[in-house]
């Protein structure tokens, strides 16, 4: 480094730093990001944070309303259900299933999608087409229906739901990644990079990925919101998570009979689902807007 700085700018803004600066100015997206981070932390540490066990029953406190109501009890901030289980603890643990598992499903989809999409992008001819259209058959069926078919074969269960969602999300993911890579490969800087002596691996890892990872994150958020909705929908239909599991959709279904008697047991998981999907979509939308603004530069 030289002894003095000629330019007033203190640090060199990398593309990532510029990205973050633009994203920060989009306040709804930023709020969405905070909610998203809160859900992620909750999903990781719910059993430690929750005041009671998931299936711990309080026979002295059945159907207690939330604590801000007259009949409420401060021990159970969000009330209890018909078996005397603390709603707050159950909902906190539900984040691990609904939100956490969706993140895992979207991550697995991302990893497989990026791998297959990359190979499809750098290969040519029939091999490229084969990889690209490998899972296209699943595009003909809506993701929820596909999940139901898989569950009909494998039997209901949370993990089967996750596999079904991964399978349903993969083809679009592979197509998007392949298109991104083909677009980048045709650009001048890749030719120049190849003339620098870069191998195929260098071109992918140093040339293309630093320029498309934001796009991958955007596709990831879209996959995530679909995954959350699908997992909870299948839970609600009693095809996914089974009742003692505290998946939000399953809690909703379990307490549906109590909707007049104890509306909070149904409303609260619904609100959480809404917030999870909303925050994911806000973040995704914010990211997309920044990308669009950057392309216009």
């Amino acid at each position: 480094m030289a002894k003095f700085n000629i330019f007033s700018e203190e640090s060199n803004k990398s593309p990532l730093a510029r990205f973050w600066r633009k994203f920060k100015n989009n306040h709804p997206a930023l709020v969405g990001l905070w909610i998203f981070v809160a859900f992620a932390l909750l999903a990781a540490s719910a059993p430690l944070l929750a005041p009671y066990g998931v299936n711990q029953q309080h026979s002295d406190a059945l159907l207690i309303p939330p604590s801000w109501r007259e009949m409420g009890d401060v021990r159970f901030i969000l009330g209890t259900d018909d078996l005397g289980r603390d709603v707050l603890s159950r909902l906190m643990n539900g984040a691990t299933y609904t939100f956490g598992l969706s993140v895992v499903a979207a991550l697995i989809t991302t990893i497989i999608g990026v791998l297959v999409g990359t190979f499809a992008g750098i290969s040519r001819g029939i091999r490229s087409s084969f990889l690209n259209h490998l899972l296209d058959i699943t595009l003909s069926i809506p993701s929820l229906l596909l999940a139901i078919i898989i569950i009909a074969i494998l039997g209901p269960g949370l993990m089967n739901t996750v596999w079904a969602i991964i399978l349903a999300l993969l083809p679009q993911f592979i197509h998007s990644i392949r298109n991104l890579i083909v677009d980048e490969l045709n650009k001048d800087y890749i030719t120049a990079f190849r003339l620098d002596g870069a191998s195929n691996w260098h071109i992918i890892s140093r040339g293309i990925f630093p320029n498309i990872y934001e796009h991958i994150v955007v596709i990831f958020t879209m996959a995530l919101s679909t995954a959350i909705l699908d997992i909870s929908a299948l839970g609600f239909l009693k095809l996914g998570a089974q009742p003692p599991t505290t998946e939000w959709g399953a809690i909703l279904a379990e307490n549906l009979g109590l909707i007049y008697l104890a509306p909070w047991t149904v409303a609260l998981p619904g609100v959480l689902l809404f917030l999870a999907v909303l925050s994911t979509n806000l973040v995704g939308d914010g990211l997309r807007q920044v990308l669009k603004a950057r392309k216009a530069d």
Partner: protein
Amino acid sequence: MQPVLKVQALSKTFNIRAGLFSRKKFAVLKNISFCIGKGETIAVIGETGAGKSTLAKLLSGADSADCGQILLEGNIIEDNGIRDNQCRYIRMIFQDSAASLNPGLTIGDTLDDCLQYNTDFDKAERTEKISATLSKVGLLVDHQHYYPHMFSVGQLQRVALARALILDPKVVVLDEALSSLDPSVRAQIVNLLLKLQQETGLTYVMITHHLSLVRHISDQVLVLDKGEVVEYGATEVVFQTPQSKITQRLLSC
């Protein structure tokens, strides 16, 4: 004296889809030969579509020829489309320098990659080489921490030049590299190119539309038309007494 770069009977054909099943062959370059000595400049001029850019690509190794040889200092580096991996001795500068630099990497990283892939320098040697090359092309050492979007067009062309020169090439191919610059910046870059040529004995292959520039810096001129050499000779001779109709037409406008 042995020529640095010698091109013998270079030809290139593209397959063009003519109909649903038929494919038409289209000869872009037919039988191109020329040779150029150390520290000299050859200019390739011609109308749009004459095959100038294809020639640049073939020379730099971005594309391979169908037949013909390219010899660098007497060694065959490309023979009938099979190329030795000697990309470091013939370097190309692209028309659009902004598009030819990776927007996600700093200039230092881009230059460092070139050295990593082609030399066995260690970290300290590479850093030193990068600093030396940047100051050679009139940039600051600090610029290596900058991203391409932070430079102006003229500076980017200097960066592209640094990238070409960092591997100590013998030949630099400039594919319309000066056309996108405004006159004052172009003059700076041309002076820089000439200075570097005097200092290090570089050979330039310049592909351009700019005739006064050709007259100013090149020793030889190669006039291409529809993939064929119509005229080849010393710049002054060609400019004073153009033989073919095509050259006359090019020079008169």
